[in-house]
């Protein structure tokens, strides 16, 4: 009963989002919501690592950036055709697969610190690389490019991103409910136990890393398509910080959490950018985010959705107790 209600509710929200552009036609809101969809996918992929497997990455932006750059470079070099986009997709998937596999194999058999450090270092390397390899990336200035005619329309692109998010959501939902997903959660809860039960822990962790990396790469592709511009900022720590905040504030270990987190953070970004004209201190909004982030980690580690779920569970217990069951 409960389960069905949840899905009907979800379907209703999805339907509402599908018809939204025709009800409320505001260009800036449409762009904002599109960004939210894209970052929601990115945050969900991050949560597969942080929330479901218990791996901390400080360089998830590297996959995002690879996706974005392969799209930008592919479309600029080969013209704005679907074939070029398909090539970019192939390159993104292959590069993210290889890189996440290498990073995972190197560090996931060691303590969690190693993975965090290694991803941070790798992303730094890629950012410097993107700055230096000017013939390919045009360095820090970045470049603009054209995208296929069909995706130029903002409404179409909005629907495309929404569909993208829903597909990834359903895919990840299936994944975490599968035996594979259950093993990941077992690793998060007690790695030694999972190991002693005979699971090849490293193998599972590496695969979680690969899946999260590829999905992050895909979200980077859509991000580049939405901006039609790219520069080295896609590899910046800010991107990783954003996605960390989205996941943690929304709720680690849930799929809904990153989506809600993405909506909150992206909206906050938008508002704070406007406020920057009012007072210069708002330009330093990272401080605010950083402080909120520290407070959330200290006092609110389950995030919005996690805390809500816990509260609901308690309420249900109380009800049962009252009924004397």
């Amino acid at each position, binding site marked *: 009963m409960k389960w069905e209600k949840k899905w009907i509710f979800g379907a209703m929200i999805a339907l509402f989002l599908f018809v939204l552009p025709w009800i409320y036609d505001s260009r800036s809101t449409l762009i904002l919501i599109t960004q939210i969809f894209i970052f929601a996918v990115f945050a969900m992929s991050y949560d597969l690592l942080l929330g479901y497997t*218990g791996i*901390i990455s*400080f360089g998830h932006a590297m996959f995002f950036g690879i996706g974005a750059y392969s799209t930008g470079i592919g479309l600029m070099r080969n013209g704005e055709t679907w074939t070029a986009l398909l090539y970019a997709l192939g390159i993104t998937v292959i590069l993210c697969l290889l890189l996440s596999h290498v990073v995972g194999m*190197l*560090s996931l*058999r*060691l*303590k*969690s*610190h*190693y993975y*965090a*450090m*290694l991803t*941070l*270092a*790798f992303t*730094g*390397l890629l950012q*410097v*690389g993107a700055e*230096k*390899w000017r013939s390919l990336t045009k360095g820090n200035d970045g470049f603009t490019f054209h995208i296929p005619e069909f995706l130029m329309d903002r409404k179409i692109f909005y629907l495309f991103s929404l569909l993208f998010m829903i597909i990834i959501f359903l895919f990840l939902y299936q994944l975490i409910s599968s035996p594979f997903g259950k093993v990941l959660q077992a690793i998060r809860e007690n*790695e030694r136990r999972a190991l002693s039960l005979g699971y090849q822990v490293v193998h599972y962790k590496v695969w979680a890393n690969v899946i999260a990396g590829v999905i992050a790469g895909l979200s980077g592709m859509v991000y580049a398509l939405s901006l039609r511009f790219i520069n080295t900022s896609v590899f910046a*720590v800010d991107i990783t*910080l954003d996605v*960390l905040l989205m996941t*943690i504030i929304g709720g680690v270990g849930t799929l809904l959490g990153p989506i809600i987190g993405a909506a909150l953070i992206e909206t906050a970004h938008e508002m704070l950018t406007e406020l920057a004209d009012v007072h210069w*201190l708002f*330009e*330093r909004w*990272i*401080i605010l*985010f*950083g*402080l909120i*982030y*520290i407070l959330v*980690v*200290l006092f609110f*580690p389950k995030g919005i959705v996690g805390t809500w779920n816990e509260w609901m569970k308690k309420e249900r217990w109380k009800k049962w107790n009252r009924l004397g069951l």
Partner: protein
Amino acid sequence: MAIWLNLTVNGLATGMLIFLLAVGLTLIFGLMDVLNFAHGGLFVWGAFAGIWLFARTGSFLLGLLFAVVVGLILGWFMERWIIQPVYGNHMQQILITLGVMLVLSEFIKVIWGPNQLSAPTPEWLAGSWVIGGVVLIKYRLFIILVGLLVFLLAHFLLTHTRMGLIVRAGVMNREMVQALGVNIQRVFMGVFMIGAALATLAGVLFGPYSGVIYAEMGLEYAIFAFIVVIIGGMGSVMGSAFASAIVGLSGAYVNYLLPDLSLAVNMLIMLVVLLWKPEGLFGTKGVKG
């Protein structure tokens, strides 16, 4: 020949700065399993605070001293209010120190503005000596000297004093030291503060070395320090010193031969170490998860 000698001096100077950062990182990690991602933030704070006072008073030594004091205070504050509440929870520790890192480097921009500041070389260290046709820049030699002093002092303290004995024992087995009646908590507080002070010292020394200081340099140099700690082995001061020299020198040489690969070469060394000896060259701690 002269160019190679110069490159060696440059590389060693860079290596010493990285060593000052890494030594705190490695000891803090060894003792309490805390990987302090905010270490780079301390580096920037040292640079700005020290250079600011230097510009005000004209005394570089006063700037150095001030940076060290700032490091001690920030270290105390971080350990007490940020690290202590999350002891024992690795995930929270790693996440929270990254947050502190960002807050620290953004506060720099609030206080000193978002632009980079120029950091002049103090007069008594400006210029260079010419010995047998080789030009040796005084300030770089000064950095190497300070780094060597810190290394020798740290080595002496760790091997010849009771405090050092406790620290070394704590790195090997924290619970056992605690069971023997040592207040390991206080030891850790001390090590954390000293580590923070060394990071700020590195920051202020870096100022005149590069000529400019900027808020983002914290993360850049923290990445070098992480690479050093991985190569040298977590918890080992000797390893950090050795790895810093390797990273500094290889950076300098490769920067001269193939400028585009200077960061990549350090990453490459790190990857080789991770594959071949994941506990690091001088590692004493277990590294398996």
